[in-house]
């Protein structure tokens, strides 16, 4: 974990309102799939707080980290306008990461919408390790599906709610209708709360291992402010240091 000034290497719109931002990383500690970092976009007091984002990739050779964000609020509006050679203040890597894939495990990687980042990073890591996996990406419409080059070596099965591209339906509907779930299967999911909840329920029903990347408003990102809690079977847990990756069986879904 380190606070540093990162140089932006590339910033490009990869789907409607979705951006991939690549930036220089420090030598201390390589980020792992599932981990996140916080960004302070400028020195102004509005927006005040740092914003957390998941890593969507990391290139060891060039020490370049990547993120995927959606232009939504003030910070992301400003980030969308950043160009190469501009700088941003970063703290990271933060939080825990996905557990290692076991021998004979058949991981199903499930990404919904802007939850793509950490799942794409996991898929690319597994691809490079030659670990077999199935990668699903769901979006409401094809306008929100990045071009295949933005998935790099990890091409997902595309699902759209309106059927404008790939499978018509969401990734979980794909799994239920097209796959025969077996004990070797496991879930690694990031996306909207409803999707995570459904994935957790499906995993529970089939007695499968299942991990979810959780999200919550954060102030500090390092475990000090106690702001980013979620309901866990052992009480309230902080997403920033107890997560963001949780065993979905431990979450009290509401």
């Amino acid at each position, binding site marked *: *974990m380190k*606070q540093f000034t990162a140089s932006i290497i590339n910033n490009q719109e990869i789907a409607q309102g979705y951006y991939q931002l690549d930036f220089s990383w420090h030598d201390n500690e390589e980020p792992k799939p599932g981990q996140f970092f916080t960004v302070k976009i400028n020195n102004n*007091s509005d927006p*005040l707080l740092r914003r957390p984002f998941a890593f969507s990739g990391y290139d060891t050779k060039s020490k370049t980290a990547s993120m995927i964000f959606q232009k939504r609020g003030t910070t992301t509006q400003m980030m969308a306008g950043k160009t190469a050679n501009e700088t941003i203040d970063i703290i990271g890597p933060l939080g825990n990461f996905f557990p290692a894939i076991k021998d004979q495990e058949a991981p199903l990687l499930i990404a919904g919408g802007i939850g793509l980042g950490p799942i794409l990073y996991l898929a690319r890591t597994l691809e490079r390790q030659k670990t077999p996996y199935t990668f699903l990406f769901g979006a409401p419409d094809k306008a929100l599906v990045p071009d295949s080059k933005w998935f790099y070596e990890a091409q997902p099965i595309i699902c759209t709610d309106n059927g404008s591209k790939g499978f018509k339906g969401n990734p979980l509907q794909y799994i239920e209708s097209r796959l025969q779930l077996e004990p070797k299967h496991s879930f690694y999911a990031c996306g909207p709360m409803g999707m995570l909840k459904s994935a957790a329920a499906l995993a529970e029903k089939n007695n499968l291992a299942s991990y979810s990347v959780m999200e919550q*408003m954060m102030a500090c990102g*390092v475990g*000090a402010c*106690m702001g980013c809690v979620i309901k866990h079977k052992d009480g*309230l847990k902080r997403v920033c240091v107890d997560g963001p990756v949780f065993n979905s069986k431990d979450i009290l879904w509401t």
Partner: protein
Amino acid sequence: MDLSFTLRNKSLETAIGVASGTFGYGSEYEKLVDLSKIGAIFTKTVTLNKREGNDFPRIVETPSGMLNAIGLANVGIESFISQKLPMLQKMPCETICNIAGFSMEEYQEVLQKLEDSEAANFLWGYEINISCPNVCHGGLAFGVDVKAVETLTKALRQRTEKPLIIKLTPNVTDISEIAKAAEANGADALTCINTFVGMLIDIRKKIPVLANKTGGLSGPAILPLGIAAAYKVCRAVSIPVIGLGGISRWEDAIQYFMAGAKMIQVGTATFVDPSAPEKILLGVKKYCSENNYSKLSDLKID
């Protein structure tokens, strides 16, 4: 340049601390902050029993600030003594333990447990959070009631020889009255101020944004409110005042010193930039040397 802060013949090398609730128990920020530059860590509030705190959402950003309603989530005094104190003792700065209770007895019990524990000997002093509701008196915060502040300060004073700092709430009609009550009953210093009650409503969901409905407002938005309160209190009492509220730049800290504060705390600014306390220290030093101040108390204006 003398940047020290003294209470009861004990000195902190640097009159800049990190505020309770914004720095956990120190270890959270160890990798990001050079703690040797900080005068003291004011710990996350500790209560008698472990507290999970409020339901979520607990925090929300506001224009140039944030609202929080954490609900004093903490490990409880027993775990604090066994788990947190050994870590805090290793930090290269002093520790001031922030205490709260929901009754007069609870405050005293927490403080007494620390006084009785060998592991707590190293604590530099205590800061008393009086913004909690007094469950025995209809939930009215201790800090808004002159009588409660008198009784509480007196009771705690009798139990310790260590510096006793009362952290004032600004959510009162006349903060001077509360300040005077604490001073008259043995407080060594006053921290001025805790957060302001605030609220935001989600107009789409038509419910308050925070699960607790209201929360404490902090950050740059409250800077002028904090300075005004510190200015007033510094002129109502003769014991030292520790200023905080909205300090994120060294210029803000200088204003608190000019208002009459003898020490400052950095709170929400640490969330935004963990190096803020250190940057503020450097800026204060530079300003003082450029303006030929040899000690912080010389900065006070009329």
